[in-house]
């Protein structure tokens, strides 16, 4: 193990938000200051870790020196670093927004839960054994449900309850799969399980249980039933966190399982998942077009955009790490753009007092930054150049054409057109509609800047594609069993 510089420890990524969460809970004021400072510190730490990762390569850290199997190992490679960076950046935008968004009473509930969610997501991206992943997955789920319910309105409570039942069912299914694998291998270490021969029926049953559990949490069509309600009824910063970050967590674990544990089995179900992903893209986009409320539209757009990650899976078998890179680019682009969209939609709602698209006021003069944020985020969601969304979809389109996979290419193009329809449905009313239905309320400056910065990030990702792909390749996370090399 390499010498660890005292300031840049992966464990701090878990400890800092956790301590911050407890502080935010105990403090009687200045919760937002603590929260933003912790999230900014988190971004600094992630930056330091990435610097070290690029200098020395991937590494593993045994917390407290105990080591597996009873201790906890943290592991960092290009993929986990990319996910951590995505989480840190988007979290900072969401935190800046939240500092202005929440009243003092709501802040008392928001900041402890939000920092707990950040700690749980960081821990998840640093975990590499199936049981730690279960625990962190539950922590993410519990914090996310509590944040959804926080608004206390009837629709939010019902949606949170449905979300909780779904996420717990997903965890149970996942954990039963882990139990079956443990019996065959005697370990929960991903790489070890991947290298150990497991009787095919056990492996198939375990993979099916784990995959179904994770798909429920990732809301792949037809498991998306809980998502639009939960994501649209939560308060704006929470919606942003749920859509941008929380749903990606299940997909990340699935991706790791795909590569490390079940490569052979995964290739067999790639076609099915690709098909469901294609249906999700088309059906989610159509639903988004049909929605009457801005936040529901954005939530259904998430269902569609999640579909792309799965749509690309059939290309992986032949396309390898290049296709994985494109998928991760789409994950990043969606995180930035969708967080921006939900926060901008939150501004429309705060400004007009409602989010009925038809009655939306012409806000472009009075909230130009929000309108710009919606427009730029929309560019990335539609997959127009230059943006992260474009880079990801372009790479996928190339791969599907090279492999002669016409259905996927067709869905990619059609999905882009449908996305344009729902993005312009939203933009059109902001730019043209007239009659204001009530007295508009002013929106704080930071609440306008935060989504704009994230939307600019989604565009900038289009120029940084090579940098991101280089970072992603550190430690070759897309080649199974590469962990022995650290």
């Amino acid at each position, binding site marked *: 193990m390499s010498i660890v510089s005292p300031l840049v420890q992966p464990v701090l990524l878990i400890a800092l938000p956790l301590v911050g969460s407890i502080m935010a809970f105990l403090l009687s004021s200045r919760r937002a200051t603590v929260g933003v400072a912790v999230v900014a510190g988190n971004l600094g730490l992630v930056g330091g870790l990435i610097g070290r990762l690029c200098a020395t390569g991937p590494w593993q850290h045994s917390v407290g020196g105990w080591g597996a199997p009873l201790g906890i190992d943290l592991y960092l490679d290009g993929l986990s670093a990319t996910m951590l960076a995505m989480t840190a950046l988007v979290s900072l935008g969401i935190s800046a927004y939240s500092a202005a968004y929440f009243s003092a009473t709501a802040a008392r509930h928001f900041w402890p839960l939000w920092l707990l969610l950040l700690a749980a997501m960081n821990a998840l991206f640093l975990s590499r054994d199936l049981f730690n992943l279960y625990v962190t997955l539950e922590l993410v789920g519990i914090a996310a449900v509590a944040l959804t319910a926080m608004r206390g309105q009837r629709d939010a409570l*019902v949606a949170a309850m449905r979300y909780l*039942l779904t996420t717990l069912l997903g965890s149970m299914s996942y954990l039963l799969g882990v139990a079956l694998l443990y019996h065959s291998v*005697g370990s929960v270490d991903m790489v070890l399980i991947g290298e150990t021969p497991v009787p095919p029926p056990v492996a198939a049953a375990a993979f099916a249980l784990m995959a179904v559990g994770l798909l429920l949490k990732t809301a792949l069509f037809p498991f998306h039933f809980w998502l639009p309600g939960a994501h649209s009824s939560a308060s704006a910063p929470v919606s942003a966190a749920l859509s941008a970050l929380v749903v990606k967590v299940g997909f990340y674990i699935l991706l790791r399982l795909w590569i490390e544990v079940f490569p052979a089995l995964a290739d067999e179900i790639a076609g099915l998942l690709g098909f469901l992903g294609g249906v999700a893209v088309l059906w989610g986009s159509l639903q988004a077009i049909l929605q009457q409320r801005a936040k529901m539209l954005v939530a259904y757009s998430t269902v569609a955009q999640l579909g792309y990650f799965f749509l690309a899976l059939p290309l992986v078998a032949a396309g390898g790490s290049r296709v994985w890179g494109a998928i991760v680019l789409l994950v990043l682009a969606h995180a930035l753009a969708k967080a921006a969209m939900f926060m901008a939609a939150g501004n429309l709602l705060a400004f007009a007092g409602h989010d009925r698209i038809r009655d939306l006021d012409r806000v472009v003069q009075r909230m130009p930054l929000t309108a710009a944020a919606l427009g730029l985020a929309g560019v990335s969601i539609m997959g127009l150049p230059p943006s992260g969304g474009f880079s990801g979809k372009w790479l996928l389109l190339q791969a599907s054409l090279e492999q002669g996979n016409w259905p996927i290419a067709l869905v990619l193009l059609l999905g882009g057109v449908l996305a344009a329809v729902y993005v312009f449905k939203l933009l059109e009313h902001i730019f043209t509609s007239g009659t204001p239905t009530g007295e508009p309320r002013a929106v704080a400056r930071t609440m306008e800047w935060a989504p704009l910065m994230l939307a600019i990030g989604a565009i900038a990702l289009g120029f940084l594609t090579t940098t991101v792909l280089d970072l992603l390749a550190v430690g070759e996370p897309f080649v199974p069993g590469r962990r022995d090399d650290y």
Partner: protein
Amino acid sequence: MTPAQLYALVGIGLFFVGLYALGVRRHLLPRILALNIMGSGVFVVLVALARRSSEVDPVPHAMVITGIVVAVSATALALRLMLRVAHATGSAQLTDTGDD
């Protein structure tokens, strides 16, 4: 069939009994209990399958203890949320809110 396998089968049975109840019951309390039964089933499987050879592996036991802590927290959250839902909607069932 060894006793360990029998226990594991019982655990899988519990998992599916819970899954069935989660699917057919409408009231939230039985649904939360159903998830707990599923969890117990998984824990029984973990403990039973820990006996891989003549020696008993302590790691799954540690996992089950962690799992119980997680299950208790999740259940507490679920029960509290159920009360809030019942208070807000007048019924402890998830009515179809639709996508209006």
